[in-house]
């Protein structure tokens, strides 16, 4: 028995030296000698010669001049990779996708072919009737409690707005507390559904949203009931869709609205890039005051030059690396306006 412990310790010692010291050191030496670019993280430099990131890791782009990567469940934080971990049966997934779709979806056929559905969602929303029942916002909050709560907790301004509402509607809140004895001191999130039900009655066809106004030369942002805007197009696209199941809409590339496994997927499909091409090209044309058709042609060429397919095309379809393409754009057209 004692002998086995001694031998175990010997093996522990030998194996730590071999597996933890020698083995990684050999790979480190080979990597730093023959593959220094890869071994240090495939870092690339920006226009000013400073590193702007790794070719392998997605980074966020919001400007219209740039191609945008897939949405990220990790907020593009390369020190905390994360997936959404949402099951297909989880409504949160469908809601997230619908929210992303609302402002970008276009009609495929019919008299409005090629036009955004967004304005129609606003018109439908203002009529305040879903499935033949009045009060869209109330129905929305009733059906999706956790999403209504998510709206409240997602932004400090939102919860402040609900708190202010609760203060000015003490009678409604105290009645709610009586019906829900488990929550004697409700927080803003607890009152989310109640708030939206009342809001919907007070402001039919409106939704609380951030509005920026200029007062005395200063811009002030506050939450106000609005009847149009991206919040409405996003949040109510799915309900609009249920009321308009027959509407023929253009499909959006799947990778544009789904999050990747790591949250750091550096690539998008070629279809996704083509889908964004019009926006990117017209913006660059505007910035550089060049002919839009020519700019589009140039960017199309950049895309084609940078496209590649997994395993030389044997295992999958064409994709492009977003950072690589955007660096090319930056080099070609200069800094975006």
């Amino acid at each position: 028995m004692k002998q086995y412990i001694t031998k175990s310790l010997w093996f522990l010692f030998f194996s730590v030296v071999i597996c933890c010291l020698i083995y990684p050191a050999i790979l480190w030496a080979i990597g730093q000698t023959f593959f220094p670019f890869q071994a240090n993280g495939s870092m690339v430099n920006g226009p000013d010669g400073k590193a702007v990131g790794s070719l392998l890791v997605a980074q966020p782009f919001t400007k219209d001049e740039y191609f945008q990567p897939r949405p990220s469940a990790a907020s593009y934080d390369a020190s905390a990779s994360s997936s959404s971990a949402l099951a297909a049966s989880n409504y949160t997934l469908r809601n997230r996708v619908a929210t992303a779709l609302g402002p970008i979806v276009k009609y495929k056929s019919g008299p409005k072919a090629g036009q955004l559905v967004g304005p129609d969602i606003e018109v439908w929303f203002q009529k305040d009737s879903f499935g033949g029942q009045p009060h869209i916002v109330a129905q929305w909050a009733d059906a999706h409690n956790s999403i209504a709560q998510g709206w409240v907790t997602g932004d400090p301004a939102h919860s402040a707005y609900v708190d202010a509402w609760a203060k000015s509607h003490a009678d409604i809140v105290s009645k709610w507390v009586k019906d829900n004895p488990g929550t004697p001191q409700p927080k803003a999130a607890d009152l989310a559904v109640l708030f939206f039900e009342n809001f919907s009655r007070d402001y039919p066809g409106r939704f609380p949203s951030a509005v920026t106004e200029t007062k005395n030369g200063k811009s002030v942002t506050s939450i106000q009931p609005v009847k149009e805007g991206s919040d409405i197009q996003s949040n109510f696209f799915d309900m609009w869709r249920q009321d308009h199941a027959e509407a023929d809409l253009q499909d959006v590339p799947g990778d544009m609205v789904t999050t990747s496994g790591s949250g750091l997927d550096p690539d998008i499909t070629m279809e996704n890039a083509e889908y964004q091409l019009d926006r990117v090209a017209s913006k660059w044309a505007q910035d550089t005051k060049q002919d839009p058709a020519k700019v589009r042609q140039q960017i199309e060429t950049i895309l084609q030059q940078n496209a590649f397919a997994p395993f030389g095309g044997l295992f999958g379809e064409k994709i492009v690396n977003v950072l690589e393409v955007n660096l090319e754009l930056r080099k070609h057209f200069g800094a975006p306006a």
Partner: protein
Amino acid sequence: MWLLPISLLVFTTLLAIPMSRYMAWIMDGKYNAPGFLRWFERRLDSGGQNWKQYAAALLIFNIIMFIYGYLVLILQPIAPLNPRGLGLLSPTTIFNSVASFMTNTNLQHYSGDQHMSNWGQIFFVIWNQFVSAAVGLCALTAIIRCFRAEQHLGNFFVDMWRVVVYMFVPVALVIGILFLQQGMPMTYQSTHEVSTLEAAAMGTTDNGQAKQQTLVVGPVAAVIPIKMLGTNGGGVYGMNSAVPFENPSAWTNFLTCFGMMLFPFCLVLMYGRMLKKMRHAWVIFSVMFILMAGTIVWAVYYDTLKPNPGLTAHPNTQTFQIPSASAPGGQRAVVLPAVAGLPVDQHLGNLEGKELRFGTSAGATFAAITVDVTCGAANCEHDSLNPIAALSPMVGMWINCIYGGKGVGMINLLLFLIIGIFLAGMMVGRTPEYLGRKIGAREVKLAVIALLVHPLMILGPSGLFAATDWGVKAESNPAAHGLSQIVYQFSSASANNGSAFDGLGVTYGFYNNPNPAPEAKAWDIATGLVMIFSRYLPIVAPIAMAAALGYKKQTPFGLGTLRDDTFTFGCLLFGTIIIVAGLLFLPVAALGPVAEHLGPIPFGG
């Protein structure tokens, strides 16, 4: 689409043939190592061991592994190679991680990129991955030697040395170089901070500055080869092989898949070579091959060829009658309205939780393979697989011998094989025999004990957790999928797999984390214990069984002998696996993934 899985299966099988020859040659001690290596062998050799001594040495060494792992993790805050100053993990997480890596499971309740310094990655992760894989391989070797009725079973420590130094290290070095060329980082540095090209898009910090992107790098190219070859699966990054640094291209994805399949494929053939029963080994190999192909086809068909059902139309209004005490007639009708589809092009299949650079069917293929060989790495989010496709990884863990882990997969198959022969013998009224030895009550008892540990360790704790806050508060997805998350976690722990439905709240993080997952402690302790029980009983009991069987008198091959190298025998083995596993796990499959598939999608929320 199908080219990736087909090429993987064919390529690995072809390479396994010469590789298994090499392994048998090493384990038979025919390799005459150069002098300085023989010095190490002599240093470690404690003399020939019988099966009890061999098992005792194995267990004692595993206790040492536990202590060593504990020390390394506890030292993280003060150890070198930690420029980020990462702190001490919570005590339960340390217990869980040590148990997990010691048992070749690599279930990670911590998140590699957030919680582990390069110190831990090198001295804890890499070391355990080399050594725990070797332990399983040695156990299988001991069983083979029992079946050969050898005087003694060799020496555990010498076997360990041979496996680690003559097999794992050279192959890991070759694969590591290929990985390096493709873009895996290999540095002792910890992070890079960069201002991204559109700096403002990262958001702003509290003092109004544009946030920087922090890229975690490290000795990735050293960890990943052995992570795959040892069917360990514990990655450097939280999201494992989905993270670009850990799996930069379609080519590395192919290699990682190949890496985790290689040794499990080889071990079946090594079994045949060492027993001089190659035809028998090929029959076993074929049964496993068909099962693996089945799980891959299932996953690819339902996940890559079908869209994510959460986004598609469900055109029929469904009405369910559910029992309700308050409703008249005791039945209440629940109406689920028809759902219109969202305009999403899903011709590439379900892309939620998938990476694009690996190829179209890569996520589903990887998900099936990683559980079959109990690796547990993942290149997509298993939680977001289509509901019925997720049955494939679960079945892989439940059967646990579709090639299976290092050595233990083949050992598990031997259990099914003994039970199968026993049942067949009962049916035709002959004394069951394996390798010419009569299977007696003792062998069957030991086989059944080892076999039943697995379902008990999955279904028992799953039931307990599903019924209590421990499970309910950890679920992140509704209804049937929530149950699937619990069952998956315990299946993964018991199969010593290590993959997970990542939504489950099991991460405590550092000991001073103010907001840990509420039930993380219960999960740490429960899965830690499950991993330990499900590792050592199914190693020791089969060695005892093999010893009881192997030293019996060999009866000569006769007319009435059950031939173990025929198509019929393959069917017998296949049937036994399917029926036994089906009887054990069909009910829970119906409650989890099948219910989710049939039930309303989307569900509530």
